[in-house]
């Protein structure tokens, strides 16, 4: 099993060099670094198995898209990565998920601590019903990473700037986050996740509740965030996966059918099922 994972990693590196938009850094053929990795991951909701033997690597400072038809387990898998599935009582899990080689399901792991390393953005924007400022300052204050007022002010500003929201809200940080438009709310949620200074950001269909214009803004944002964070994004929108992700995994019936760099997966899929899905024959 270990070897299988390793092989996959090298394949990824190999193809990546050919495919990433000819950007100069890629020409160096740098070995992509595995940030998170799942191996032989099985998951059950009660008696129903939802994930089968998932082996998947997510590379550092890359966007990995998880695509597949509804109910294929991609969101379930995403929630395994920051242990959000712990909140569902009937869930049973087997296998390993690692962050920088550390098993996140180890008994000694503090879930709360783990989630400060792995942020999450949800399908429907869910800002807290507090002010914009409080939405962002809340977690740093809680985790003690920002204590003084000026520190928090700086953090709020830099997080909002990184989320591309600062210019729109700078003069009304006291208004409730829930009064922003849908797209702004989602960017606020991203800013909120960034404020904790995570290494990985998980996104569960972050643009599916947004209009096309807001979607474009969020996609552009994801593209920028890639420089600093490892991003795993679940999406229904194949074009979106093609636009934002360097790597794509196709899930079907709780299994990873195919994983490759995005261009190869979309232009030259190895599996018939992948081809059927991306050409719209099912799903």
């Amino acid at each position: 099993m270990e070897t299988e994972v390793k092989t996959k990693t090298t394949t990824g590196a190999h193809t990546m060099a050919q495919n990433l938009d000819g950007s100069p850094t890629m020409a160096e053929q740098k070995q992509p670094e595995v940030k998170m990795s799942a191996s032989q991951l099985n998951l059950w909701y009660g008696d129903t198995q939802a994930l089968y033997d998932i082996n998947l690597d997510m590379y550092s400072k890359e966007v990995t898209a998880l695509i597949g038809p509804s109910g294929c387990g991609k969101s379930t898998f995403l929630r395994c990565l920051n242990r959000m599935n712990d909140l569902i009582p009937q869930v049973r899990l087997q296998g390993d998920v690692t962050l920088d080689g550390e098993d996140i399901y180890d008994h000694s792991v503090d879930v709360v601590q783990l989630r400060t390393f792995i942020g999450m953005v949800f399908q429907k924007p869910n800002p807290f019903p507090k002010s914009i400022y409080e939405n962002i300052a809340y977690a740093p204050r809680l985790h003690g990473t920002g204590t003084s007022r000026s520190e928090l002010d700086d953090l709020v500003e830099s997080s909002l700037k990184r989320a591309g929201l600062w210019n729109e809200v700078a003069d009304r940080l006291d208004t409730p986050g829930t009064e922003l438009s849908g797209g702004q709310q989602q960017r606020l949620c991203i800013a909120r996740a960034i404020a904790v200074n995570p290494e990985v950001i998980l996104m569960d269909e972050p643009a599916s509740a947004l209009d096309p214009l807001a979607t474009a803004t969020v996609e552009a944002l994801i593209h920028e965030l890639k420089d600093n964070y490892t991003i795993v994004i679940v999406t229904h929108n194949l074009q979106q996966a093609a636009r934002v992700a360097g790597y794509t995994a196709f899930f079907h019936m709780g299994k990873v059918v195919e994983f490759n760099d995005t261009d190869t997966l979309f232009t030259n899929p190895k599996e018939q099922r992948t081809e059927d899905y991306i050409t719209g024959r099912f799903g």
Partner: protein
Amino acid sequence: MQRRLTGSANDPRIKARYRGERRFKAYTVTALFVAFAIIVAFFTDIISQGYSAFYRTEINVTLDYNERAERIGRFALAEDMREIVSRGAVRSIPLDIRNNPELAGTTRQEWVPTYSRVDQYFKGNEELPPEMAAQVEELKEAGVIRTTFNWAFFTSGDSKLPELAGIFSAMVGSIFVLFVTLIFAFPIGVMSAIYLEEFAPDNKLTQLIEVNINNLAAVPSIIFGLLGLAVFINTFGAPRSSAVVGGLTLGLMTLPIIIISTRAALRAVPDPIRLGAFAMGCSRWQVVRDHVLPLSLPGILTGTIIGLAQAMGETAPLIIVGMIAYIPEAPGSIFESATVLPAQIFTWASEPRKAFVEKTAAGIIVLLAVLLTLNAAAVFLRRKFERRW
């Protein structure tokens, strides 16, 4: 052009439909009207019977602190006044003289309450013997009889003399009882609800607890009275008739209401808020403290106030624990014998004397006013602090 949309006035099916609709509307309007008429009739009846208790008839008499009055207060009055003035008004004269010997031998003019039957006569509720009626009419002509606002109704406790009876001791008793109920039921109820809603695993045991809490809310209140009697008085030896026993008994009754309404308020907080907070690295307690509780607090308080309002109007369990006693003096602590507003109303309602009819109605008016105020406070809290998301 053929008109197809106006419906033929002669089409029997359309006519029947309109008729059915009109009839159904008439039923609903009638039902509403009946309900409204009953409420209006109820309020009119209570207010028309009770408003007269808020004023009383007083008479200006000469009090003569003579030697006989040092032993029996009534002798301070002129002989023809003794039947007209309230016995309670002169009862304390011997004590007054003992406490203040300078009074002995002096006289003074004072407004004192009249005997309840005279009071009722002027309120048109009761007849007097003819010669007595003539006498009081004469006094009224002479200007020595007046009507004033009955402050005593709010400042004195129960009395066997209706002209002196008031709701003060029952009010104090009610406040003590509600205080104990709140202190007991609020923290336990809210904490239980938070545990069940936010922390407890969903298994057979918690389901069993949930079903039982819902059943408890439907248990007749008198059963809680028996439980209170058995547990608080017989087992723990808490003083009978006291506010602490009554409060704890009502607390048992209010507990399921608070738990259920708190759980409803917690459940109304959308899950994405919780998930968002968990994903930020909040522990369960931090999620509850910083996100769920602030959002559900108005709902929790509203439910608590409504539970307390219900407890305030409750009589049956309090009768069982002895809070129906005759309490002329307001209790000084929660361990002293006390009565509550509805129990006071019950006591007065069982009095045969005419003068207590208006006291009963007035007691109901005060109780209703307090309950309406509590409910209005609940509505206000919900409107003011309810947040949308």
